[in-house]
């Protein structure tokens, strides 16, 4: 086994525990399974194992008798070097089997900047990048996750994509595979033709005219693992996670997750309590997080918390609620130590712009919440904004500063804590995403974004407020990658070959190389981030919200701008 060759060299790399497998709760590998599935995440171990989706599917597949599912992630640079120097191919964590020997390799696509890492992993596995170059001797390479709603930019690298929820489709796919393999008639092309008929499956070589996303109808009855694999190392979110519901009805117009995960589907309180008790005893974390796109919108939240609290207390487990509203009852369920900081996704500086993007939060809300929180001892506030939203003006940016001032003033008035206020402002850059009302919008020009960031940096420093911002250049590449069509595959391959991977890691991102790769293919980044006219590349995919609805929403947004400017 080739991994053995480098076992004693593992000390030369950072965090060797990423590469050794043997995690607690990892199911036994079934050596004689009919379908061997390699679940890949195109980033490092610590990031990968913070993702809930791959863990659900991993355990789901392993519960099937005839399927064995293992994990593989991107090795970090030092490990890559060690592997290449010793001729070690990408291997599975559990049994250290080379990736090539699996039947199906599945990639979870959570962010566009991980696309080059897909190529990186195929490269390390000695598997050709293009589906068209992979004969019968190579595994099927499939993709899924939120990015798959526009699969075209990376279509050339994949045999098929699963669009939508994976819990029902993925096992079906494995069953079809097993059936053909066991009666000796498996051929890639036949298999692909058959599964193209399954809802949610987009076969790249067939390029079907219309593909509907797959969707679990009854989340309450949908599988959720409680004996979840436990990372060898502290990972980004080291806690048990419970998925309370799927979808979000808030309809913020920039938010892709909100539109592609519709409709809202809930788990029942009793189901959640049962899952929670099992998760707590099967894993042993000291914190359990109630997760969803906006947990405070769970209609039975109060009941859930009331029932969960005593169970959690008994096991000395804290309950974590992402983005708690302090003015509501939930705060009393949250542990004291965690009460120190408030988070608001304000997104835009003025009410006008917040109305345009349909972000339901008012300045009054924010200040009132702050007042109450400060009175009860909070001393930290985090504000999140987005720069370059459609219709944004200077006024909108200036208002970010004045809101910050008002929060400072509120703290002076009402704080009961003797500590000084810790106020942080973070800004991301608006990225127009497929299947949102703003999908056709142009992205703010690079220089413009940087100008705004500099303005905020300067003004916030004067106020003594910490400011962090997302890199404008990588947001531009992200916008290009998420909205383009098939022509982008060449660019992505060129970028990878010139040394781009781990693009999501700010210090590993090479903007110049991306620009070169675009140029080489006759493409201009400014052109690609302009307003999109005409047919959209992802028109053959349907995620449940119609294009008419999205156009309508966009018009509504623009109307708001006009109405408000008239009234001024």
């Amino acid at each position, binding site marked *: 086994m080739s991994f053995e060759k480098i*076992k*004693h*060299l*593992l*000390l030369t790399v950072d965090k*060797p*525990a990423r590469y*050794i*497998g*043997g*995690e*607690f709760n990892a199911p036994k590998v079934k050596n004689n399974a009919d379908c061997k599935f390699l679940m890949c995440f195109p980033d490092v171990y610590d990031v990968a194992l913070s993702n809930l989706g791959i863990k659900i599917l991993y355990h789901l597949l392993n519960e099937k008798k005839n399927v064995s599912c293992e994990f593989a992630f991107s090795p970090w640079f030092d490990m890559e070097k060690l592997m290449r120097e010793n001729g070690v191919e990408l291997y599975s964590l559990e049994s250290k089997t080379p990736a090539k020997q699996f039947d199906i390799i599945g990639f979870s696509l959570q962010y566009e900047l991980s696309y080059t890492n897909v190529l990186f992993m195929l490269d390390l596995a000695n598997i050709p990048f293009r589906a068209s170059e992979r004969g019968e001797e190579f595994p099927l390479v499939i993709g899924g996750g939120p990015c798959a709603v526009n699969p075209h930019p990376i279509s050339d690298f994949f045999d098929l994509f699963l669009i939508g929820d994976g819990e029902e489709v993925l096992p079906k796919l494995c069953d079809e595979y097993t059936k053909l393999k066991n009666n000796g008639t498996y051929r890639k092309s036949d298999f692909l033709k058959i599964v193209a008929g399954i809802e949610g499956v987009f076969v790249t070589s067939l390029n079907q005219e219309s593909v509907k996303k797959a969707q679990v109808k009854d989340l309450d009855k949908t599988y959720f693992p409680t004996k979840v694999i*436990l990372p*060898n*190392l*502290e990972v980004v979110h080291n806690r048990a996670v419970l998925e309370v519901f799927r979808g979000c009805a808030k309809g913020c117009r920039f938010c892709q997750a909100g539109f592609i995960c519709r409709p809202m589907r809930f788990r029942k309180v009793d189901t959640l309590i049962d899952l929670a008790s099992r998760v*707590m*005893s*099967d*894993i*042993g*974390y*000291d914190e359990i997080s109630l997760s969803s796109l906006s947990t405070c919108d769970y209609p039975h939240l109060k009941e859930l918390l009331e029932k969960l609290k005593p169970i959690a207390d008994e*096991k*000395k487990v804290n309950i974590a609620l992402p983005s708690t509203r302090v003015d509501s009852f939930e705060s009393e369920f949250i542990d004291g*130590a965690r009460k120190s900081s408030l988070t608001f996704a304000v997104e835009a500086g003025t009410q006008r712009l917040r109305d345009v993007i349909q972000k339901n939060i008012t300045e009054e809300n924010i200040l009132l919440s702050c007042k109450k929180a400060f009175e009860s001892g909070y001393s930290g506030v985090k504000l999140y904004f987005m720069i370059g939203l459609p219709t944004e003006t200077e006024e909108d940016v200036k208002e970010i500063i004045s809101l910050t001032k008002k929060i400072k003033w509120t703290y002076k008035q009402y704080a009961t804590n003797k500590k000084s206020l810790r106020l942080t402002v973070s800004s991301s850059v608006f990225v127009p995403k497929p299947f949102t009302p703003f999908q056709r919008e142009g992205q703010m020009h690079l220089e413009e974004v940087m100008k705004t960031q500099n303005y905020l940096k300067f003004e916030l420093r004067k106020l003594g407020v910490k400011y962090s911002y997302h890199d404008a250049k990588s947001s531009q590449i992200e916008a290009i990658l998420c909205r383009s069509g098939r022509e982008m595959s060449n660019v992505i391959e060129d970028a990878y070959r010139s040394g781009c991977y781990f693009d999501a890691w700010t210090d590993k991102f090479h903007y110049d190389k991306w620009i070169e790769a675009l140029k080489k293919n006759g493409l201009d980044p400014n052109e690609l981030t302009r307003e999109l006219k005409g047919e959209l590349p992802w028109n053959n995919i349907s995620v449940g919200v119609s294009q008419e609805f999205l156009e309508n929403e966009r018009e509504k947004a623009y109307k708001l701008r006009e109405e408000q400017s008239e009234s001024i």
Partner: protein
Amino acid sequence: MVIVKFEKVNMREFIPHLDIMRVFNMAFRRSGLKVNYSEGFNPHALFFFCQPLPLGVASRAEYFCVSTSETAEDVKNKLNENLPKGIKILKTKTVDGDPNFAANCGRADYVVEFDEVLPYFDLKNTILKKDEFLLTRIDKTGQRKTKNVRNSIFKLSQNENKLKMQLGYGNENLRADAMSKQILTNSATHSMVKLITKIKTYDKNGVDFDKKYFS
């Protein structure tokens, strides 16, 4: 209080000390064994570990003490059902107070395995009979630091391509990985260390922890 002897083998030696502590913490929670918590703002479960081993050193003789009123038998059996492969409880015993392993450990035995057959090292004449053995390391600022570590070397022997050594552990600590490397360097041997396993822990007078605490 219950004292525990455990082993950490089968690549678990690559898991850092902090994560090993987390493994035990969570194993206790899963197994439903109650552990006492410290008082104060940020309560934590009361575990008292020995001097942590360097990353990459396996062990068949690790010790810790835990503040709990569970029986020693339960701690052993229930924990073993809840630990990842490669980490195993070997012995447990109920004691009155924390024996403070960290302060009492003094020496440890290691077995070092190499990837190729080793030449014969004249350990007796080149090291054991001398008053001085210099260990060179590069410190954080990139400077070479040399130190006489002879007082931390208690026993050394070679068995084909294995070295057995007894070194200072805890106080006057001498890392087995650094020591092995120095021996290789001094003899200009190109083979590499394959695996280091700690096999015994002693107190300052050379009494085996097993004998001192578990009999």
